Each structure stands twice: as C-alpha cells, then as structure tokens.
C-alpha cells in the first residue's frame, strides 16, 4: 500500500494542478464580473479540439501550440464578453447565466456535429515515455502537465499582483464605480478578465492533450471538479483555487487508491461538504 502512495500522490498533484489552472480561470471571472461562467467546460473542450486540430492538420506539437492557443482563447474570451455576454446582461444576472449556458449549448452541439461523439487522442514521440521520480514511474506528459500548470498559475498570480492591468483588474473587481471615476474602462477590464479566464483553458488544453482523450463531453468532468475547487477554495480567491485544486487532486487520487477507481470522487465530495459545513465561505473566502 505505502509503495503505491507516492505514485498516487504524484498523480493527484498532476490532476490537481490542472484543476487549479481551470479553476483559476473560473474564479478570476467570478471575482471580477461576479458571474459564473457556465460555458467554462465547453470552452475547455473547444480548446482541446483546437490543440487536436493543430496537431492533426499542421503537425504542431501540443506544447508549441501554447503560443497559438493561449492568445486565441484570450481573444475569444475578450470578444464573447465584450460583444455577447456583457451586452446581454441588461443589468440582470439571470441574463448572464442564460448567455453563458447558451454559448455552451452552441459549442457542444457544434462539436458533436463536427467531431461526432468519437474520442480522439494524439500520438506524440514522447507520449509513452516514463520518468522515474524518486521511485514512482510517471508518464512524461503528466509530469509536464504538473510543471506547466504550476508555472501558469504562478505567472498569472504575478501578473495580477504586479502589472498595471492586474492592478486595474483588482480595482474593478472590488470597486467598479471608483474605477470608472479614475478613468478605467471597466467594460474593457471585464473583457480582459474573461479573456484571461479562457486563456487559462487554452493553456490547460495544451498540457492535457498529450495525456488525455478528447471527446465532446470531456469538459464536464474537469469543470465539475473545477467548480468544486472554486467553492472549496472560496469564490474569487486565487490562493483558494491553487490550494483547493491540489487538495482535490490528491484526495481524488488517494480516494481511488483506497476505495477503488470508481469511488475516488466520493472522497472529494466528503471533503467538499465537510469544509462547507465548517467554513461556508470556503478555505480562503471572505465573508460576504
């Protein structure tokens, strides 16, 4: 059992880092725009197909695809918020829910129609390479996913904390009226935040593809856990998403080890419910 512990932990960390990256996008969008992006899962799926198509049509390596997918998803997010979700709001939160749900339905149906419900996987030269990490064998793409997701999270945190744009994002998140008073274009900052949220998905897709299957339904499993991470960590909290993501990944993996693969997620929801019972605002959430 204990021999299996370290590999399971490593595996959990890998998944957790990906969950954290996806959750970071969700929590940024929530923290700034105060909306829940119900299209997050379908947009992750869309990004994964983007990486797949780049690989199949042009032979672009998934990691090289980062330089295309991250900006492309940013632009898509910027446009969606600026021209569809923002204008559809008309001052009512229900409208945003409907807009993001509508976007997700459109994307999923288009994907189901174009890609059928087949699952795809890409074959890279390094896909089956195993790395020995202190006694645990881990597939190279998974190790790269762990490293890549952690680096992405760190870069995003640095950007939000230290750049002019990051400062404006934090200001708009807390006090949009004050931001307008000093001449910040709030609609632009909203769209930039949404774009960054989707750029996280673009990065996650590139890290996921060498190791995971793609299907039109692939977004759901990841995003369900990412939602859990966001609530667990505290809505809108960056640290919460990071810690929550890693925690959920480890609990899921250890749960699978102890209870069997199919029951692994039960552990996740036990932890989830437990935290919410004793800390309703999540691990790092502020009181409303």
């Amino acid at each position, binding site marked *: 059992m204990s021999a299996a512990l370290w590999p399971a932990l490593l595996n959990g960390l890998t998944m957790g880092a990906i969950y954290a990256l996806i959750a970071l996008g969700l929590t940024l969008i929530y923290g700034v725009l105060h909306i829940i992006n119900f299209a997050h899962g379908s947009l992750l799926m869309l990004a994964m197909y983007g990486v797949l198509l780049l690989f199949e049509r042009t032979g672009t390596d998934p990691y090289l695809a980062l330089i295309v997918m991250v900006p492309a998803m940013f632009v898509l997010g910027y446009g969606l918020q600026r021209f569809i979700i923002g204008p559809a709001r008309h001052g009512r939160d229900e409208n945003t829910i409907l807009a993001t749900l509508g976007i997700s339905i459109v994307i999923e149906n288009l994907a189901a129609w174009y890609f059928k419900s087949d699952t795809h996987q890409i074959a890279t030269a390094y896909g089956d390479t195993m790395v020995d990490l202190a006694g645990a064998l881990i597939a190279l793409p998974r190790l790269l996913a762990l490293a890549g997701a952690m680096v992405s999270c760190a870069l995003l945190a640095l950007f939000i904390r230290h750049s*002019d744009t990051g400062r*404006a994002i934090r*200001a708009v998140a*807390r*006090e949009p009226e004050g931001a307008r008073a*000093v*001449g910040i274009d709030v609609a632009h900052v909203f769209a930039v935040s949404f774009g960054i949220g989707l750029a996280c998905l673009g990065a996650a897709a590139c890290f996921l593809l060498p190791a995971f299957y793609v299907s039109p339904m692939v977004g759901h499993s990841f995003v369900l856990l990412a939602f859990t991470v966001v609530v667990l960590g505290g809505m809108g909290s960056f640290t919460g998403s990071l810690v929550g993501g890693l925690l959920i990944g480890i609990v899921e993996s250890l749960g699978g080890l102890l209870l069997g693969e199919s029951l692994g997620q039960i552990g996740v929801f036990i932890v989830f419910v437990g935290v919410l019972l004793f800390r309703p605002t999540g691990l790092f959430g502020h009181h409303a």
Partner: protein
Amino acid sequence: MNRAEPLLEINGLASGYGPIGILRAITLSVRAGEIVALLGSNGAGKSTLIRTLCGLLTPSAGSICWLGRDIAGASSQSIVAAGLVQVPEGRRIFPNLSVQDNLLLGSYRRGRAARQANLAAVIERFPRLGERARQAAGTLSGGEQQMLAIARALMAEPRLLILDEPSLGLSPKMVDTLFELISQLHRQGLAILLVEQHVAQSLALASRAYVLENGAMAFSGTPAQLLASDQLRRAYLGV
C-alpha cells in the same frame, strides 16, 4: 467679475437612469480657477448631475461643453483623460489595494514618467499617505480615506475637480482640514465644483453657487445673492 473663459458649460441638460428622468433643463458653468458650489437637499439630483458630467450616465438632451468641445455621451475614460475628474460620493477607494496602488491607478491613463512625477507631488502634499503607502487602503481612517480619494483624483491631472460630499462622515476637525485643502487647491489655480452639506463653509469659498431642487435649477448666482434671499435660505439651505 472674473471674466476667464468657461471650462465647463452645460446647457438644457436632461438626464436620468434609463427610462427614469431625474434632471431637467440644467444650465451651469464653471470658469477656470473658480470654486462653484452646487447645493440642494438630499435626492435633489446633485450626484446624478455629476455622474452625467463624468460620462457615467448618458444625457437624454442638452449639451456639455468642456473646453469648447461637446462631451455629452463621451466615455468616462476619455472625459477623465481630458481633465474633468470627480471624487465620487462615498469615496470609492480600492480597499483591497495598497495606498500606493490606489494612487497609481489615478494616473492610469498617463505614461510611466508622468505617473511617478504625479505620485511624488501628491505624496509631498499628503505626507500621511506616503507613510502609509504600502498599507491596504481599507485600513485607513475615514479622514485618511477621503484624503486618498482626493489624492487619487489629483493623480489624474484634473483641470476641474468635482467633489461630491467630501465631508460626509468626517469629524469636525477633519472637515476643517478638508476645507483648508480645498482652499489651498483653489489658490494654486485648480477649478472646483463643490457639492457639500456644510453650506456656510462652502459659500465662504465659492465665487458662485447653484441650488438644485427636484432635478431642476432653483437658483444660480453669487453666495451673497443666495444668502440675501430668505426664501431660498430657509427652503434649501437650512441656515
């Protein structure tokens, strides 16, 4: 009379919130370097007028001329960039950001060099904010937060500073400090549109005053004329 050319000239302005009309036929002007008091009871529409001037609300009629250019319907960011800057009611500082970050965001539209120069100038004027530069703005006292709100607006290099009830919630001593600051800014040549409940102190500084009532201008003239009218004094000023 000061015959300086007008910075701001509003004519026949109507505005409100979506379908709800609040302001009707508003006429108001501010000339370079003068303090103009905008008075009126709670709910008269003073903040609505300021929001409209600053591009946060779109007027349904009338014109807003700023330095000879009609800015009615322009975006709030272009209006701030043109030098028309408000300190909003309730301060609206960014409590989660440091004092320094709050100030830097005031110069968001300016280049890096201008920003650093503005920061140095503002900290020289408000040494207290310099001492607390790294502290979260939300931890400041009420008076310090108001100073921060004004300092943040100064970072935007205003030609006209609009103050919406800056003394709200301040101790009497802080109110005196605030009026001292307003008079100092005026002496240095800044034009100020002042909305205040401290009517006597505001009229003592202002060269002209307007009284807004139920969304329409009920009076415009000099402080002396306003104080001479018993009816106005009793109805709108309570002095």
